[in-house]
């Protein structure tokens, strides 16, 4: 699958003169964004996961899933919501003027971009960190405490080192999302690799530079995949013979963790959704809503189809991987499909058009097959990562037991692995589904005639600088992805 994204880069390997000049700029901006978003997402994601798993405080149960909700908001939509909130005609400024003062707030810069992206991407880290903390044997924490280590020392010395491999794989998803983001950086005028690739390839028609820039990104992704494989390899086996759930520690000032958890939800969900609702009150008519609801059907069908496809492919690949060699490179190999995820969607889109034309040109015109194909290529990494780590957790004795009972590997897949993996597979499916509901550039280029999804509909208004009209579709995107997000939480439990 990942060959698809690479199909662009087969032709040329020469260099262009503007490449070395622009590279430092792109490297600087992209790394600033990456570091910023990673630090903020890690802080929020790990911090809230820790509070929710270890401590007891009011509404803790609800926070478990509410904290994932920001994931349902596309970064670009979050960006326009925040710009809309803080600009001259936004509610903050209106209130300030009403109070007789005014303050120019500029969200459209590096820190603003970090802010709007991290607020909706931290759930990737949160979900990973929480499942890691839950998996962790409760007695390790208790041992450490009874040996005189405070909660925070226990966190630093025991929980973080043990959970890091899982948290890292969540962080990689954040990195990918930042790398492939075009909407926010374009809108905020921040030249990054993505905007650079777009500019070189589409505006300048300069394929070489575009490929070189893509290669730099791909090398970085390769490095991450490598790093990940090292981290995963050094993973220490934890005690697995325990199913006791940690009894939650009461927090002395119980409203403090409540407010800490409320913060990211407030800024990552309540505020943008509030802005959308305000806009939709301003601009939406019943007609717009009815139309958007129709598009919701398209979005859901696409999500279901592609999610299923990705999960099926991931099962096939992970399982054949399991049956064959166990070398680290054979495990990392499918992870190269991450590249499809790290590239800007439009670039992958054109790559996939090329690929489809080469495979079977009729696909493009026969409904949504091209889209399903495209999504599967793009989001394979998301589904595969989950599925594969799920397979890894099943002890190989199960396979041996099954084969000693005369079951062939297919039957044991159906009868043993899949039932055990059901929650993991559901989780993978849901992540892919949410990603697809938010996906834009690929949908734009690959969709059949007269086909709108919620994302394309929201985007058309947003691009036309009519953000209020985009509100109803944006709200429905959030709605459609919130439902699976709610279930995602129940699965982790």
């Amino acid at each position, binding site marked *: 699958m990942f060959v698809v994204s690479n199909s662009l880069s087969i032709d040329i390997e020469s260099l262009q003169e*503007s490449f070395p*000049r*622009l590279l430092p700029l792109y490297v600087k901006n992209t790394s600033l964004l990456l570091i910023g978003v990673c630090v903020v997402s890690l802080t929020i994601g790990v911090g809230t996961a820790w509070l929710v798993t270890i401590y007891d405080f009011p509404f803790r149960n609800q926070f478990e899933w509410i904290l994932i909700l920001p994931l349902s908001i596309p970064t670009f939509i979050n960006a326009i919501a925040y*710009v809309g909130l803080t*600009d*001259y*005609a*936004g509610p903050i*400024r*209106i209130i300030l003027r009403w109070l007789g003062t*005014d303050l*120019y707030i*500029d969200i*459209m*810069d590096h820190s603003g971009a970090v802010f709007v992206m991290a607020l909706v991407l931290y759930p990737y880290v949160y979900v990973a960190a929480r499942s890691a903390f839950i998996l962790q044997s409760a007695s390790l924490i208790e041992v450490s405490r009874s040996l005189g280590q405070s909660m925070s020392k226990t966190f630093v010395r025991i929980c973080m080192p043990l959970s890091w491999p899982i948290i890292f794989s969540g962080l990689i998803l954040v990195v990918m999302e930042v790398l492939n983001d075009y909407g926010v950086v*374009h*809108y*905020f*005028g*921040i*030249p990054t690799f993505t905007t650079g690739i777009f*500019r070189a390839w*589409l*505006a*300048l028609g300069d394929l070489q530079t575009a490929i070189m820039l893509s290669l730099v990104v791909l090398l970085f992704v390769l490095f991450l995949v490598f790093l990940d494989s090292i981290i995963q390899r050094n993973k220490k086996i934890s005690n697995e013979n325990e199913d006791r759930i940690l009894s939650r520690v009461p927090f002395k000032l119980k409203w403090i963790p409540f407010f800490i958890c409320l913060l990211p939800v407030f800024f990552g969900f309540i505020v943008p959704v509030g802005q959308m609702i305000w806009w939709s009150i*301003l*601009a939406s008519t019943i007609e717009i809503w009815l139309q958007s609801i129709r598009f919701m059907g398209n979005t859901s*069908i696409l999500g*279901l*189809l592609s999610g*299923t*496809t990705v999960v*099926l492919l991931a099962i096939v690949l992970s399982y054949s991987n399991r049956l064959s060699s166990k070398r680290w490179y054979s495990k990392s190999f499918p992870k190269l499909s991450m590249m499809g995820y790290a590239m800007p969607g*439009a670039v992958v*889109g*054109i790559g996939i*058009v*090329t690929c489809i*034309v080469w495979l079977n*040109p009729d696909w*493009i*015109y*026969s*409904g949504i*097959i091209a889209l399903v194909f495209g999504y599967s290529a793009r989001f394979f990494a998301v589904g595969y990562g989950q599925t594969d780590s799920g397979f890894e957790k099943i002890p190989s004795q199960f396979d041996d037991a099954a084969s000693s009972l005369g079951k062939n590997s297919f039957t044991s897949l*159906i009868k043993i692995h899949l039932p055990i993996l059901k929650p993991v597979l559901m989780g993978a499916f849901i992540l892919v589904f949410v990603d697809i509901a938010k996906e834009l*550039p690929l949908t*734009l*280029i690959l*969709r*059949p*005639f*007269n086909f709108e999804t919620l994302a*394309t509909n929201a985007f*058309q208004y947003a*691009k*036309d*600088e*009519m953000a*209020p009209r985009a509100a109803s579709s944006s709200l429905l995107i959030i709605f459609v992805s919130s439902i699976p997000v709610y279930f995602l939480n129940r699965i982790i439990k």
Partner: protein
Amino acid sequence: MKVLSNLLIALLLVACAGSGNEKTSESKELNIYSTRHYEADRILSEKFTQETGIKVNLVKAGADELISRLEIEGEKSPADLLITVDAMKLNRAKEKGLLQPAEANTSNSPRFIEDEKYWYGITYRARVIAYDKDDVDVSDLSTYEDLADEKWAGKILIRSSGSSYNQSLLSSIIHSNDREKAKSWAEGIVRNMAREPKGGDRDQIKAIASDVGEVAIVNTYYVGLLLNSENEEEVQAGKKVGIYFPNQAGRGGHINISGAGVTKYAPNKENAIKFIEFMTSDESQKFYASNSYEYPVNSNVAPDPTIAEWGEFKIDNLDYAKQTDLNQEAVKIFEEVGWN
């Protein structure tokens, strides 16, 4: 598992069946690749279907993506018509051999028809100077070129160079001056910027309202939208700025034209021409004028009162757009002068 795979197959069948039906009647169809995604276009194309019985199929995406897709699809492309909001993109499609000349019966003024009839204009917008009515003396404004002057230091607002409007503006400046002058103009603008280039055109006007800068280069269409916004505060922001048409003593103000060109391998060429004629008809043009804050290309039709209020103005010709390599030149200049 079984349920899942059955569901998958069923859905695929439905999807295929659904799209299969659409392809039956051959000549009663029209396939459009368009970068225009406006409500007015949707209403007009519905009207077109009602009047002619021709079903309009639409794919909307960015111009560059659509052109790439046309290129890749080649002869197999189902597209009949390519619509973009920028003449240069249409010319690029023409140069790449993706379009074909077509004879359409329109009342377009000749400047809005491509010389060899490869494409026809549908509407246009002007790229103008919006200024703070309180702080700027109109008599200080004159040309785009003048904005690079030191007197505007720290006052200019403009969006990033990724915008095709800016690329096209700089192309026209290269065309009417030369590369060196254009580059020093861009340098001057960067020097005079009130803030890093960012946001959309509406954001620039709102920034004037916030007193971040005093002068913005914007597209009339967005000013029209702002003045007719659902949000009263946006209307207030829009009212704070005046609109100035630059270069009236010289070559005229810069415009961005939307146009439609029949594709080289159009399966339904006749329908495509009918569509162009329909879109440029007096009736449709009036509809555009009153609904989308764009200027009509049909010489029989007057613009919408919102934009007519800004007055008549002299427009620059579209010669720059014939040199499609200027766009790349412009992008390079932007890079050189550090205009993000």
